[in-house]
């Protein structure tokens, strides 16, 4: 029982940050049809901005708990400023282009943004551990779990619910759904697709940055760490189905729980398990488990 509980908590913890990052990646793909490799850079910029702000707030005498305000500030600042700038200057020139060009362009953008991090923040890793000290831990499954991780699970659950609500219960959600279903038809119906593209890209960038900002207090924020998350996020969205929000949630949960099971019970397969699941999905259901329905054009 203790083991099952531990696998559940660890799996949810890992899935929660993956979900937040993958959600941004998958909605950008679903709406803009842009496979945004530069999404890992939003994650890294979010983490750096958050770690920097937490350090500044802490120096100013803000309490450990109070420094958590840096998380939304960093995510919004990075998402709004960097996301807007990139969409307006680069991404909008890629709409409708060949997939290979899009991947190469966003990969190049990722490399540039990673190097700009070195210019702005230097090579020394940043520590921003204060929030992890502020939230008390709890005993679950016979071991002590840190409270910060539990708040991350709650945050991703809230983001999942808000995403569902926005998509299914709001005017904007219906516009987005219409574009995902058939962007040509949406244009014909008078939807300002460019405006929706811009908003969705910025929201996706905010989510990528939020994933990085929330994880920053638990890691040594150092150059190059955005690579790992973009690979894992791709695995998540491939498993769940590219462009599917529900798929991102299920993909993240599968990856998180299977990885936790492997680490706790069968450490030898930990490196292999995530990609084995991805390969199995690609073999038996190449469009992913929850790929959105596609309009058939005649």
């Amino acid at each position: 029982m203790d083991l099952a509980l531990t696998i559940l908590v660890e799996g949810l913890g890992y899935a929660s940050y993956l979900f937040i990052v993958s959600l941004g990646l998958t909605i950008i793909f679903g709406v803009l049809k842009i496979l945004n490799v530069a999404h890992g850079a939003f994650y890294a910029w979010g983490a750096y901005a958050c770690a920097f702000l937490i350090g500044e707030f802490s120096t100013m005498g803000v309490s450990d708990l109070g420094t958590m305000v840096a998380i939304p500030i960093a995510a919004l600042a990075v998402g709004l400023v960097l996301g807007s700038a990139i969409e307006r200057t680069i991404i909008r020139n890629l709409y409708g282009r060949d997939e290979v060009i899009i991947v190469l362009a966003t990969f190049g953008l990722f490399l540039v943004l990673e190097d700009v991090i070195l210019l702005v923040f230097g090579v020394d890793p940043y520590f921003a551990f204060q929030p992890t000290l502020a939230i008390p831990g709890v005993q679950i499954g016979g071991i002590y779990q840190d409270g910060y991780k539990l708040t991350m699970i709650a945050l991703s659950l809230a983001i999942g619910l808000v995403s569902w609500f926005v998509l299914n219960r709001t005017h904007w959600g219906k516009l987005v759904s219409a574009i995902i279903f058939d962007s040509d038809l949406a244009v014909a119906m008078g939807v300002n697709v460019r405006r929706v593209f811009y908003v969705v890209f910025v929201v996706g960038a905010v989510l990528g940055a939020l994933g990085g900002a929330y994880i920053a207090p638990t890691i040594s924020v150092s150059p190059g760490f955005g690579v790992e998350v973009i690979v894992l996020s791709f695995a998540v969205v491939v498993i769940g189905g590219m462009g599917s929000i529900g798929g991102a949630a299920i993909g993240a949960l599968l990856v998180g729980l299977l990885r936790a099971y492997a680490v706790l019970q069968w450490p030898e397969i930990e490196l292999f398990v995530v990609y084995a699941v991805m390969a199995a999905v690609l073999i038996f259901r190449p469009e992913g488990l929850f790929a959105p329905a596609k309009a058939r054009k005649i």
Partner: protein
Amino acid sequence: MKSLRYAGVLGAGLAGVIALAAPMPVAAKDTVSLGIVAFLSGPAAGPYGVPGRNGAEMVIDAINKGTLPAPYGTKGFAGATVAAEYIDESGGNTKQVSEYRNLVQKRGVDAIIGYVSSGSCAAVAPVAEELQTLTVMSVCGTPRIFEEAPREYVFRTMSHATADNIAAAHYVKEMMPDVKSYTGINQNYAWGQDSWRDFSLAMTGLMPDAKVSDKPQFPKIFAGQYGSEISALSLDDAELVHSSFWGGDFEAFILQATPRGFFSQKKVVLTVGGVSAYRLGKRLPDGVAIGSRGPYGILVRDRDTPLNTWFIKTYRDTYGEYPSGAAYQYAQAILATKIAYDKAAEAAGSFPNEKQVREALTGLEFESFAAPVKMALGNGHQAVTEHMYGIVQWDEAAGELGLRDVKVYPAECVMPPADTTSVEWIEAGMPGAKC
């Protein structure tokens, strides 16, 4: 568009002019050019690459000015000014081989010094032999460099990783004799796997009654997230945890395990914890045992010798912080090369050629900044030094990290003799070890 669904897996140096019987320190060559390789970006830059480069830069500056303490106060390498070019070690082994070839074949450097990663060293060692270029490895740990093939052009001026893990086992036996079981968390590549192998083999010999866990953890290098691994180690009955984590992985592990009370629940020995000691400061938990890959960094901070005192003071004056292990290790490689040039020049009576420098470095014994170094293994190409471990204790009065129960293990205790490999020696019960 369908294909997109699968896209997720997408010096110029010149030949030395030999002066005819010119007495030292007159140089027949104005400049010795060095390529110095260290992580200048990526997760290893902060803990290793930058302090390593700083240590090299500081010592080269002192060598060029002739301000190193006695007996190394002569200017330059055999009188020649040292010019250094710094290369980033990030980017993988293929890139390092390309960088190496570029330094030798296009930039024409006289020697290459550096490398932190065992992967980099293993990749460039055969290229150094092919291009016949003096290469002095400063940090990398894998014992395979000199155990798998004899080398003519490659040297390493510090002990290899076997010493870290044998010394760790000795320290556990000495300071934690009641330990009944142990496990480990090490990165899943050559460094982590070799470290765990050497530690568990040494523990089998030194503490045969201690039980080894059947679930040691090997997370991917640079994984960053260790929540599940910390839970697995917490649920494991093993009392002691061994880790050779380094760089950003090490720091992330400390930050994630500390709020979970991990370090009050388990005894922990961190073979390279000393490297990040100054960076983590109070966040490095009291009670953990740390090494620093030999007599370097925080482990020798209180060692009161003229060379060490100069090194610490100059480094602090220059960079505003204590020198960590990597600073010592890169500085040591530069110092060894200077001594070899000077010694070769003295023997030749003129500015030495490359072969004479290699001959002078082979089997060299010298007093380094913190401890004596003997190029004793690998036909005189692999150094041995003493090794140290201590237990972390925050010094509230001084407001800085300190160590207690520091133990020193002689090189002959923790490094294998010349006629055997590390694994064979440990498995044989470390015959002839002088502890």
